[in-house]
């Protein structure tokens, strides 16, 4: 007993010089971190300040708004159809995310918990599909959608998500692999079929991974500019927020204050979502990176 108490005591007895050095290193490290944090926050800070300026202030060399013009956030809604853009963004993001979940979960289950010939080969093709950038399929797909007369609609953006998304399949499969076989066997002994197991046991156990996939998918589609720009640009009635924002300045000349207010409004949902679901985000990123 006394030994157990004495040991940590001995370990802690570090020479004063070493301790001072360690303290200095820690202080230096933290100062560097604080400097970096200030630089990472500075852009947000200046966006907020500019969004509260009058147009003249934004074009002057003043960095601090006086007076604060809160009216900018009201004006933005008068000057551009933000609500309509938001509606189309939400339709894209929600329907695409739903599709990703409904189609990717069964695939990930078949690739992780059922044994069948050719499984590894199929998983390898999933990984290859993951590696290939969407840029390389956009030209022939555009041709396809234009033949189906769907260019200008949300269809070309949403439909592919209902047929399995490589990244989500990969992430879910990695997580499904970590669930102990005993849980599934217990359900099998009780007479559950594989589909029942997937719906009742797997979905419940894999909640964190499913939450991460839903978040990433929502975020990806909310932020997506590349595909909407290709399929929706010619049809302003169906624009999403990201296209609208990118054209905001040409709609309203050089008004940086309003542009920054709009930018802030487009950033806000993402930032709020992050603070609500921070753990799911970080766990999701870690899951893809470390086990990949």
């Amino acid at each position, binding site marked *: 007993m006394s030994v157990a108490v004495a040991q940590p005591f001995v370990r802690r007895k570090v020479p004063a010089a070493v301790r001072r050095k360690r303290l200095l290193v820690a202080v230096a490290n933290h100062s560097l971190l604080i400097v970096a944090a200030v630089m990472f926050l500075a852009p947000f800070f200046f966006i907020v300040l500019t969004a509260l300026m009058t147009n003249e202030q934004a074009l002057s060399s003043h960095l601090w708004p006086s007076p604060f013009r809160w009216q900018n956030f009201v004006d933005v809604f008068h000057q551009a159809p933000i609500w309509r853009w938001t509606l189309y963004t939400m339709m894209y993001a929600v329907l695409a995310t739903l599709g990703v979940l409904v189609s990717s979960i069964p695939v990930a289950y*078949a690739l992780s918990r059922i044994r069948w010939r050719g499984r590894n080969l199929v998983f390898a093709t999933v990984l290859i599909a993951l590696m290939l950038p969407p840029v390389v399929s956009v030209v022939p797909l555009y041709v396809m959608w234009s033949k189906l007369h769907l260019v200008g609609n949300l269809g070309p953006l949403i439909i592919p998500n209902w047929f399995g998304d490589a990244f989500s399949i990969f992430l879910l499969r990695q997580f499904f692999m970590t669930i102990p076989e005993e849980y599934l066997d217990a359900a099998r002994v009780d007479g559950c079929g594989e589909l029942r197991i997937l719906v009742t046991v797997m979905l419940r156990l894999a909640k964190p991974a499913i939450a991460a996939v839903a978040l990433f998918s929502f975020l990806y589609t909310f932020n997506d500019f590349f595909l909407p720009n290709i399929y929706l640009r010619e049809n302003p009635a169906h624009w999403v927020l990201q296209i609208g924002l990118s054209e905001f300045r040409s709609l309203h000349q050089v008004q940086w204050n309003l542009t920054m207010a709009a930018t802030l409004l487009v950033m806000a949902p993402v930032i709020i979502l992050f603070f609500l679901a921070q753990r799911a985000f970080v766990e999701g990123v870690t899951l893809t990176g470390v086990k990949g």
Partner: protein
Amino acid sequence: MTETAAAAAAPFTLERRRARRRAAWRRRRLVLLLMAPWLIGFSAFFGYPLVMSVYLSFTHYDLLSSPKWIGLANYKYLFRDDPQVGPAVKNTLWLIGIMVPLQVLFAFGVALMLARAKRGVGFFRTIFYLPALAPPVAATMAFVYLLNPATGPVNIILEKLGISGPLWFQSPQWSKPSLTLLSLWGVGTLMIIFLAAILDAPRQLYESAELDGAGPFQRLRWVTLPTISPVILFSVVISVIAALQYFTQAYVAANIAAGQASQAGDQTVNNLGYPEGSTLFYPVLLYEQGFKFFNMGYASALTVLLLAVAFTITVLIIRHSRRWVHYAGAVK
């Protein structure tokens, strides 16, 4: 006696075999059912485009009339005559050679500092990760404003410090460095991946290294780097692939900066690559040919080349990596 036993066993095994076969078939049907979305999606949105790109790349096709077979003409134009391909490839190589290494180094450095921090790790991690979530369009617009040569906060602050700032997005020399700054701001995802990997490294390795008298740099070189090398490989591969399809930031920055220069935001002007083609990256060129000029045949040839390059680079990096990537348990 033996005969009756055999006779009794025969229908039994037959029935069992039949039952087993039925179970196997049911299982196969289930797998097929579960895999159905992927099989359809893979053929329609992956296989079909792949085959179509190759076919269209040998044709002239403007979406209005049907594709006309022209043999290798698109590839001849691509490799010999198109004056934009050279600069576009050079610009994209700039991203791979300069921006990607900076991103990886920067993310690694920040992660290393975070791993050593004793307090406030969660707080700092949030701050460094947040910009990575910001919509790229919004982040790009913010940076074009921040780095606005005349009235942007960065140049105002630089002026107060007695430095006359560069023209940033308005200058062909500074446009790519400006985009690099933007990409460093959004490096949070890589940073989190590195941080998790560093914290995952076995503690006893560090302790024994310390006992052997290794200083902080030696520990970094001989303990941290080898243990996280698979993660470094992973992040290099995804960053290179991201660089090959770098589009949104370049497109938006060029558009906004050009509109600002003309003060009119004239939509008829072709702003791609502004200023002076310095931000004309390969995907921007592909976009211009495919979706501004609707040269679908030529855009397909550009696609096929990009596909081949993306594939080759990925394979090369992974092949080459066997020399420096350390797999725990020496599996490879």
